[in-house]
């Protein structure tokens, strides 16, 4: 508990970088109620091909993270990317879950994060053959409705002359989406950890394929 007057100031480094400090609930022992339909919209993949967001969500449990590649906030986008890779590694290490989930990193900075940029960014983190999509948009017209639907509001920093400073602020949110495109969980900085996300994915997979009943004779 700490001796009197031995208090340390609040620590802000996200829990997602450290071992999980608790035992998560047993897979399948809890429910993840739906929080509504995950929104659709027009996006660009890392090859510059136009597609719909719903083209990459809806066939397997998907983790969707909103990022921008030039983010330097260790508890922001880098945390999300770190956790996404860790989730991938955890699921791939189990033959029962390997290949059964998708990761999607979606940039909300279409000015800097062109398809070429996000392709290069993704190449640094995506394990070979990982089902991890990196998406962007062609501008605010297609980006804004998606961000509004997911409650992702970005504040761009401008100087007194109205020039963009190159930095942005946003609330980190990562979404877990099921095969019916229903949002089943939302993680923010304090709650984003690979172990809990992977546990939730396993819970969704168990929901889709419950263990067969055993009948005693």
């Amino acid at each position, binding site marked *: 508990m*700490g001796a009197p007057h031995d208090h340390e*100031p609040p620590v802000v480094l996200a829990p997602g970088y450290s071992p999980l400090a608790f035992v998560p609930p047993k897979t399948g022992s*809890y429910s993840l109620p739906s*929080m509504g339909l995950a929104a659709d919209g027009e996006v660009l993949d890392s090859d510059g091909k136009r597609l719909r967001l719903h083209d990459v969500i809806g066939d397997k449990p998907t983790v969707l993270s909103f990022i921008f590649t030039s983010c330097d906030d260790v508890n922001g986008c880098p945390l999300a990317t770190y956790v996404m890779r860790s989730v991938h590694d955890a699921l791939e290490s189990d033959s029962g879950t390997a290949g059964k989930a998708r990761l999607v990193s979606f940039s909300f900075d279409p000015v800097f994060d062109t398809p070429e940029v996000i392709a290069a960014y993704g190449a*640094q983190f995506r394990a070979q053959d990982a089902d991890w999509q990196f998406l962007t948009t062609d501008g*605010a017209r297609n980006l804004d409705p998606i961000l*509004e639907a997911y409650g992702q509001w970005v504040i761009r920093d401008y100087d007194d002359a109205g020039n963009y400073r190159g930095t942005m602020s946003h609330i980190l949110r990562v979404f877990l989406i099921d095969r019916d495109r229903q949002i089943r969980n939302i993680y923010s900085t*304090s709650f984003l950890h690979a172990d809990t996300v992977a546990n939730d994915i396993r819970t969704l997979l168990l929901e889709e394929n419950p263990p067969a009943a055993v009948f005693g004779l």
Partner: protein
Amino acid sequence: MKWRGFVSLVSILILLVQPTAADETCMSPYMAKIVGQEDYVYIWTLGLEGVGDGEDKLVTVDVNPASDTYGTVIHSISMGGRNEAHHSGLTDDRRFLWASGLDTSKIFIFDIHSDPAAPRLHRTIDDFVEKTGGIVGPHTNYALPGRMLITGLSNNRDHGGRTGMAEYTNSGDFITSVWMPTDDNLQGATKSGNFADGYGYDARALPRRNVLVTSSFTGWNNYMMNLGKLMGDAEAMKRFGNTVVIWDLHARTPKKVLDVPGAPLEIRCAWGSRSNYCFTTTALTSKVWLIYEDDTGEWQAKAVADIGDASKIPLPVDISISADDNHLWVNTWNDGKVRLFDISDPFAPEQIMEEKIGEQVNMVSQSWDGDRVYFTSSLLANWDKTSGSSENDLQYFKLYKWDGKSLAPEFNLDFIELGLGAPHQMRFGAHALYGGGTAQSPSGLATPPAH
């Protein structure tokens, strides 16, 4: 940067990251924080018969000393009636303020981001009881990631204290509800003592321990009753909560029911990275209780301090923990006092100061740096005092400066004289949260700032 290099960089950064400052200390850990001076305090205010329009309202006070309208009411929006306005809470992105009524069970969602100086009503939830399966009296509006957790006080079957909690999306759509554990349905929880009353009141989360802590008050039959009549009704006085429940935060399942007799109310959890404990106070027995994780990982409850003289019924209400976890402000409604406890040893709080704030006092909110402490007066419509030694000190919003030793009054707004009503929950607002006052599109691209 390759993956392995990224992992190495993170390892270094873990050693180098410095703590940041943030705003008032009692909010959800999932929320956006204000750095520096708050611009506004939004006060959810109970309408009073014969005072102004008599309606519940959200009042906005300018609290930035650099402003020309510092210390004045700059905006008010009335709700068209009285709902027993009580508590409010912000969404995790602080774009919306949820304010609820204990009598009508309505929840009003205010847009505070479009113009922080002039909140506007965004949506009204008027089917809370129906959607939740009978929960009455939405009390705490608590931010979780992308959604709100709402605790109840009562139910629509007998209007007693058995109740539950509900979750809504940030946009106001119902997600799910769960009932508090009771003797006849513990829902897998361990009953550690004598009580499993199924009552509710406040909720606070400790995400890094995967814990949600809830407390217990009383039902609609009691909180809507005149206080004098209630205190003279021995049977009614038995129907107050005596429990704190520890929940698995991720699974939303109750794990343990702790005995905390005497109506434990507000819960405030410590901020320190190894401080696995929370405080609550009991209204009827006038004690500070510590809810803590012991060395074996079990959660326990222990009475750790007395608050005033319990025989005089000071009635502890709101509490506020300092950002460094070393101090706890405790208001006692009945004697109108605030008491400050040194809680640097959470097992042995020590009162170090007390001060009379008004005829009655309920809520206390402090800035993150602790320099500013705000107070409001109202508890419940049928409980609030309507007369006293100082008629203009009954319903107020007051700011004090705290220098570490004493409170210095800064300003006092008399809500009856201003025709507003009985002020209750306070929440802070700031232009800086939304881009410094310039409206931006979700991406910040479509509407650059005008210069």
